C-alpha cells in the first residue's frame, strides 16, 4: 500500500476490508456446509509447505547431476518431473528450458499469472505485478538488470509468454565450481528466481 508524495493513497481499500470480507464469506460457506475448515487448512498447508520451489530445485539438481535425467527432462518435462513425484494443478504440461552460455530463457505470463505450480508453488507477487507482466516481453534485459543480472549482449534472450496450457521451468546453468557436489547439496543452490529465468 503505497502513498504518493502528496499523501494520497493509491489504494482504495482500508486495510482490514478484504480480511473481513473473506472471514464473512468463509463463515457463510462453512455454515451452509459448502466448505470445511480442515479442507481450507490443508490446502493452505499444501502450498505453504509441500508444493513450492524446493520441488523445482530438486528437479534442477537432479538434471545437473544426471545427464540421462537431464535429457529426459528436456524431452518431456512433465514426465521427468513426475519421476520425482511432482505434478498436479497448473502442471498439465511442463516444458523445461535449458539455459546455456549462448541462450538465456525467462518466463512471464502477460495476460494473467500462469506459473508452474507443481515445481515452483504459487507465484510471487513480483511475477504477478503489472510491471513484470508489461515489461518482461518488451525489455527483458532491463528487467534482468533490475534483478541484478547484466546479460552479455552476445547472449540470446528468449522470453516465454505462458499464454496457453504449457508451464515453463527454466533449467539454469550449473554454477561454476559445483561439479561433483551431490544433488542434495546442489538443491540448496537453486533459487526460485533462477527457475523463472530472472
Amino acid at each position, binding site marked *: 500500500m503505497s502513498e504518493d508524495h502528496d499523501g494520497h493513497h493509491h489504494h482504495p481499500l482500508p486495510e482490514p476490508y478484504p480480511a473481513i470480507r*473473506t472471514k464473512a464469506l468463509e463463515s457463510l460457506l462453512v455454515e451452509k456446509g459448502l466448505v470445511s475448515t480442515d*479442507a481450507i487448512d490443508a490446502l493452505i498447508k499444501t502450498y505453504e509447505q509441500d508444493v513450492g520451489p524446493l520441488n523445482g530445485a530438486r528437479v534442477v539438481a537432479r538434471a545437473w547431476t544426471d545427464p540421462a535425467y537431464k535429457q529426459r527432462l528436456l524431452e518431456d518435462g512433465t514426465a521427468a518431473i513426475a519421476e520425482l513425484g511432482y505434478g498436479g494443478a497448473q502442471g498439465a504440461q511442463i516444458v523445461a528450458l535449458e539455459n546455456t552460455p549462448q541462450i538465456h530463457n525467462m518466463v512471464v505470463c502477460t495476460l494473467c499469472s500462469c506459473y508452474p505450480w507443481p515445481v515452483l508453488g504459487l507465484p510471487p507477487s513480483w511475477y504477478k505485478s503489472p510491471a513484470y507482466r508489461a515489461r518482461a516481453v518488451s525489455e527483458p534485459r532491463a528487467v534482468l538488470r533490475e534483478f541484478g543480472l547484466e546479460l552479455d549482449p552476445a547472449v540470446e534472450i*528468449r522470453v516465454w509468454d505462458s499464454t496457453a496450457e504449457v508451464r515453463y521451468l527454466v533449467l539454469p546453468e550449473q554454477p561454476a565450481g559445483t561439479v561433483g557436489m551431490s544433488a542434495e547439496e546442489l538443491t540448496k543452490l537453486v533459487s526460485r528466481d533462477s527457475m523463472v529465468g530472472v
Partner: protein
Amino acid sequence: MDGVHDLGGMHGFGPIPYEKDEPVFHEPWEARLYALRRALTVPMFATVDEHRYALEQMPPARYLGLSYYERWLAVFQEALVANEVLEADEMRASFEAYEANPDAPVPRRTDPELTARVVAAAFRRPSVHHDDGIARFQVGDRVLARNIHPKGHTRLPRYARGKQGQIANINGICNLPDAIVAHREPEPQAVYSVRFEAVELWGDAAEPNASVYIDLWDSYLDPAVIE
C-alpha cells in the same frame, strides 16, 4: 477482450516490485481466500478460463488498482451471488456483522473426506491431448498472428497481433479458450509455441538479440504472406 489485463509491452508501471524472501501468502486472508475458493464443493467457475475472463471484465481502474487477491475476492463475491450460492442480502449481513465485530470467530466444520479430495485434486495430473495430426502448421513454418479484437475472452495478446513469427514447437491439442468462455461447442485445436523476433514486435525499441515465444492456438494464426 482488449482490456487492461493484456499488459505485454505497456509502459508506465515502474520498476518490478521485488521482495526478498517473500512468503507464499502475505496476509492470512489471502491464504484463506485462495483455499476457500478451491475447496468449495460447488465451484464458482467451471474452468480456469472463465475465472480469467471474470477478472478481465473488472472495471479497468479497479483491475489495476487492486492487488492480485483483492481481484480474486471481488470476482469470487460476484460469482457467489451470480451462481445463487449466496444471496446478496445474506452476504451483506455477514459483511456488516464482521465489520461491526472484526474479531468474531468463524464457525468451524470438519470434513475429512472433502479435505482428502481437495488435497488429492491439487496433485492430480491432468492429461494433455497429443494429436499433432490436426496441426495446420509444422515446426519452422512462418505464420502471421491474426488481427483480431474480440470482445470476449482470448489468449492472443495484443502485442503479437499482426506480427509474423515462426512455429517453434507443437505443444499439443487444447480446446480454444475463446469458445470455452463463450459456451460454444468445444473447439480442439493445435497449440503452437510461436517465436517472434523482438524487432518484429517492438521495432526500433526492441532490445538486441531477443525473441518472445508465445503459445498460440491454431485459429489465432494465418500462414505468413511473405516468406
